């Protein structure tokens, strides 16, 4: 259990965090979400003492972490995944992962075994990837290695700072699923920072919404969806509501046939519900210089599910 007690932080006279009281239970996948400047990353970095609070204290299983003599004893218990993977460019994948195993005093063969096992677990073939350099990896692969590096020494806690924000939507979704699976399998406590409400709702067992250094609401995704505590939370959630695709998106997916008929039935800004309505009256809808059939809409929807 990680407990924040009356945490405040001020930078150059400005209050970045104001009287934060928060308890993160063991085995939770807890998400700190909020717009930039909300203080979520500052809060996260206090857990491994990359930041220190101005007032208040943080306890892990009842132990005040500011009282720990050796800061590395604390850090050696925690995995940390940064935004871009932050792999050391001069070290191979295996060496990058071994960096966190260094403090565990394992034999070389034990290390190799662990690294191989974990790479396989995140769907990277050890024989292919172990000796690669970070520059030979895609963004998604690099972040998988980053996760392995945080996970390989079986920490009780893993901290993740905007870990998926720089990825393309497809890799992002895959890694979110991977993280959910890993959390279920290993049952460690994960504290995850994101500015993306969608991601927060998707991942979290519980989440906290922050704004300008103050807690707006703490709860499960459902609670927050159903009962936003204030207008800010409601708006923040709305902004990140799943958008209804527009006809433009259907066209952008390469669907539809060229049409020479000038007069369009619908605008490209109309959404797919309106398109479906139109198909109830006619079999072919003209949008701009393209004609769409019902089959196009079905194909489009099928593609969305695949993603």
């Amino acid at each position, binding site marked *: 259990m990680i407990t924040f007690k009356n945490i405040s932080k001020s930078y150059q006279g400005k209050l970045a965090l104001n009287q934060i009281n928060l308890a993160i239970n063991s085995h939770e996948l807890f998400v700190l979400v909020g717009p930039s400047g909300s203080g979520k990353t500052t809060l996260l970095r206090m857990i491994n003492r*990359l930041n220190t609070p101005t007032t208040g204290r943080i306890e892990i299983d009842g132990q005040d972490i500011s009282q720990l003599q050796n800061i590395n004893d604390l850090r050696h218990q925690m995995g*940390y995944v940064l935004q871009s993977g932050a792999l050391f460019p001069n070290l191979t994948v295996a060496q990058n992962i071994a960096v966190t195993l260094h403090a565990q005093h394992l034999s070389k063969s034990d290390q190799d075994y662990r690294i191989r096992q974990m790479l396989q677990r995140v769907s990277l073939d050890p024989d292919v990837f172990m000796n690669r350099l970070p520059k030979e990896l895609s963004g998604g692969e690099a972040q998988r290695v980053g996760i392995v590096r945080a996970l390989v020494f079986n920490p009780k806690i893993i901290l993740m700072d905007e870990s998926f924000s720089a990825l393309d939507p497809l890799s992002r979704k895959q890694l979110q699923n991977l993280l959910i699976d890993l959390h279920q399998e290993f049952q460690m406590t994960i504290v995850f920072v994101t500015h993306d409400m969608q991601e927060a709702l998707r991942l979290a067992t519980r989440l906290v919404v922050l704004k300008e250094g103050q807690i707006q609401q703490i709860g499960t995704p459902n609670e927050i969806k159903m009962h936003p505590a204030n207008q800010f939370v409601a708006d923040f959630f709305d902004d990140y509501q799943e958008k209804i695709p527009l006809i433009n998106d259907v066209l952008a997916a390469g669907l539809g046939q060229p049409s020479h008929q000038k007069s369009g039935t619908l605008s490209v800004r109309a959404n797919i519900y309106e398109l479906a309505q139109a198909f109830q009256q006619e079999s072919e809808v003209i949008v701009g210089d393209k004609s769409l059939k019902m089959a196009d809409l079905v194909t489009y929807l099928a593609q969305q599910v695949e993603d």
Partner: protein
Amino acid sequence: MVALINYLNTNQADIMKALWQHISISFLAILITILIAIPLAIVLMSRPRWGELCLQIAGIVQTIPSLAILGLLIPIVGIGTTPAIIALVLYAIMPVFSNTYAGLTNIDPQLTEAAEAFGLSKTFKLFRIQLPLALPMILTGIRIAMVMIIGTATLAALVGGGGLGSFILLGIQTNNNEALLVGAVLSALLALLFSYLIKFVTKVSVKIVGISLAVVCTLGLFVGGYGLLSETHKETITIAGKMGGEPEILINMYQQVIEQDNPDVQVKIKPNFGDTFFLFNGLKSGKIDIYPEFTGTALQSLAKVEGSIPHDPKQAYQAAKTQLAQQFQLTYLAPMRYQNGYALTVRAGDAEQYHLKTTADLARQSGFKAAFDDDFYRQPDGYPGLARNYGLQFDSIRTMAPALRYQALNAKQVDVTDAYTTDPEIKEYNLKVLDDNENFFPPYQAAPLMKATFAKKHLQVVKSLNRLSNQVTTQEMQAMNYQVTVQKQKAATVAHEYLQRHHLIK
């Protein structure tokens, strides 16, 4: 081209020695630089305020002309390789330090944060992450420094540090283009070679870089250390000479008579060691034991003499001997016979036609055009005093570089120039030296100068050197200078032949 090949052939051993010296000095300097700059950058990388301060200081040091640094260092550390290496290190620290510092401090903050968050030990962080990431920058800094050091090391010759610079200096001072070319081209090639080597190293893997750095360090220690050891720990007598052929002939003579008479003494000679100032300081600091000095120079530049300088050679020597002993506790042995003072020269043909034998004869002529060395033209004891003394008058007077005025005289563009009486050009261009019949110029006779304590301890050496006193006439010296400077014969050979011919050695 033929001259150059000849020069290369006759001086092969000296060139190789200078090249080796140059490489040793450069290696030792880069090694010391690396050992200072890189640890300094490592210590300061987490203290940005001090780091910036050091960058500023290193930058300022680099703007001081290297010549000035050498000059400032002489009173503190004396002459020879030590001030040269210190100056080179001061110079080279800036690029190595600033590149290492920049390399270490500009590492992606995400990586630094990751390393911190994983609780990595300081040594692990430094040697596995920070240094490898900064390595390309560090190597670039070392490359810049190396090229700079090899180029600047040519200045070491000015303080008696040897190296390729001695050829450049010799070339400039004696108008010897071959020597100049050898020194300049070799040092440029050396710089290019090392730059290329280091560049090549940057392209290969970190492991190889580490190994080669280690090799360079050990090599530098070995090469430099060996050079220094062999210089300081051998019990030998060191004799140095000023720039040019004549001093080199003299010190070879000193060496040959001493070594023949004293089989247990080894004489190390350092030709083209520097100018009067460096040699005099070198003698006082014990870096060298003996060097040939002129009586006139001793009286005018070294010892402070009250009243006018004696114009009689014997009185001049006595005065110089007394003053040097009193003021500096130096022993000045008896001089050789020849005079290498100022004089006026004309073409031999003119001398015959106008019956010119002495300077007074010239004063009776009119319509002569003169060309003088700039110093000679300005110094009160040069042309202005001479003209007043003899009542000289010329049609026109121009000042030009020493070597050019002989060419001008030979090409009949001018009719009179100043000269040193033993200049080889006198023989080369068949010139007539006009006798200073009223003894206006102070006498310049060469004699060995040493510390009084040294003379007391080495009576046999003094005895050997005294055998050379009153030897060698001005004409003989001219001829020998001609053989060495114009015909490019080896000074050692020329000296040996002379000594044998006059039964001074077997």
